[in-house]
């Protein structure tokens, strides 16, 4: 029997759909023209220009600082929240679930304005600190939801077996729960990281003087700036990401 070609075609189309935009972006970062529809010849001018733009790098630094710290904190808080939601069932936990769930469905603009009004009422000076708090607020929900899904499939008889064999709560946490939940926590963390990196609306409202992040910088370039710079920056970030993945795979192979 001949195998159907259909899955292959779907696969190719899917790959094109996902990766073609990234490819176009990389190609355009070498485009001398600032408009993506015209090919103005090969050029490295956007890269040259990029390295003269201190404010773009400053914005990138802010973005990374917030993304890394907000992700780390929300991974801890989100995992704790997921444990509590899975373990205990009471009316209070129902309220807790709603609270954790709400940021997923709430429009960004409401959250941005709401947080800004809140910070303004408490007279908290706006800056990287308030962006951090805001990002943790929505990142926690994503981590908690992903970890909760993993806990639902979790075989708790392993924990009982460990208890039978005399393991204390710390041993169980470090040797059993965390290693088994790690993929879920990591997946939630990655989701939180990417959401934090590209958040514009909430960040715009809660940012203060000197805390411009990359998305804010890019949006504000629309009127007078040179957005193709961002193609060059994205290409560099992609290269770094691939390099990191390659190195980590090499290390894993060596260990195995």
């Amino acid at each position: 029997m001949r195998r159907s070609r259909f899955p292959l075609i779907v696969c190719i189309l899917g790959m094109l759909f996902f990766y073609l935009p990234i490819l176009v972006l990389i190609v355009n970062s070498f485009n001398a023209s600032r408009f993506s529809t015209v090919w103005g010849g090969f050029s490295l001018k956007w890269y040259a220009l990029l390295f003269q733009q201190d404010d773009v790098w400053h914005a990138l630094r802010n973005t990374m600082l917030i993304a890394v710290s907000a992700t780390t904190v929300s991974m801890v808080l989100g995992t704790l929240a997921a444990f509590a939601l899975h373990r205990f069932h009471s009316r209070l936990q129902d309220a807790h679930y709603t609270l954790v769930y709400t940021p997923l469905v709430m429009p960004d603009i409401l959250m941005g304005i709401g947080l800004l009004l809140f910070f303004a009422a408490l007279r908290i000076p706006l800056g990287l600190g308030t962006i951090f708090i805001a990002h943790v607020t929505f990142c926690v929900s994503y981590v908690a939801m992903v970890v909760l899904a993993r806990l639902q499939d979790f075989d708790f008889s392993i924990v009982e077996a460990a208890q039978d064999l005399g393991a204390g709560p710390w041993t169980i946490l470090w040797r059993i729960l965390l290693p088994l939940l790690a993929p879920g926590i990591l997946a939630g963390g990655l989701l939180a990281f990417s959401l934090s990196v590209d958040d514009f609306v909430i960040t715009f409202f809660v940012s203060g003087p000197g805390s411009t992040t990359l998305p804010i910088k890019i949006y504000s370039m629309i009127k007078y700036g040179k957005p193709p710079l961002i193609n060059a920056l994205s290409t560099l970030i992609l290269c770094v990401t691939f390099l990191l993945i390659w190195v980590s795979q090499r290390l894993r192979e060596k260990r195995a």
Partner: protein
Amino acid sequence: MKKLHLRMLTTVLAGVLMLGCAKKPLTLHVFIWSDYIKPEIVQSFEQKFGCKIVLDYYDSNESMYAKLKAGGGGYDLVFPSSYMVNIMQRQDMLQPLDHAKIPNIQHLDPAANRFTMDSNHVFSVPYMLGSSGIGYLTSKVPDFKPTWRMFGDPAYKGRMTLMNDYREAIGAALKALGYSLNTLDTNELVQARDLLIQWKANIAKFESEQYKNGLISAEFLLVHGYSGDIMQIMEENADIAYVVPEEGTSVALDEIVLLKQAPQPELAHAFINFLHEPEIAAQNIEFVYYLCPNLAAYELVSDEVRNDPAVFLPQNIMDKSEVVWDLGENNALYSHIWDEVKGAE
């Protein structure tokens, strides 16, 4: 003994405080569009005044206003468009400027005063002036005439675009008819509507963003757009020209304002004054390619820029041009007409 200790403590404390001050230079916080100021100007101000300038960015007048209004603070200077200056002033968000600290205000071009409601500069000082007009391919539109009526020319049917912005598009039709683009006269508006419906049948579409790509790739031959946008694509394609129709057009004036809660009003005044040093203003015009309305700077820009109608509007056209004002409740008159145009076959 105890007294001595106390005195020592206060001396040390005062010393620490003073050190702290000396170490930390004053910082001016500016809220502005990205790339709207030449970076070297910022650096030379920092050197001259021994301070630091931190630039933060917004992407529209409206989002800037929403943020400041909701309590986002800490900024000294903001660069809103003139209609927004008016709104911010009514909302009591601005503080009056001390003209004694801005001697360069004497260089301001009085022609720009028509484009602001604050023509005595009580709260605002003009920063940059831009216009909307027509960009076209000189080789493909040989019989170009500098008039809005080009959009009715059947020779270019289906190859032109008008901006997809109700005030800009209706404004073009009003100007073609010789009326004010802020008119409240229903008769004039009805005439503009009929003209715009005629144009609609002749153009490709209403388009505010893709007209730039369309003109470069010669998909469109003639487009209605902002001077700054069309200047950017002229760098790519030497065949493109920008012209402001002789009937006049809409202009946008961005101004500098000092916020009521500004932490550094002294430094802010100094910066406004610095931006209007003729030499600095001239450099800034050549960098951002908009017109800083500073008469003394006009003499200092290169001839190429001086003769560019995209930057320097001819006086007779300037006199016929206007700012698109926020008409409050009367905006509905325009949106109603726009619905009729959009719905027309």
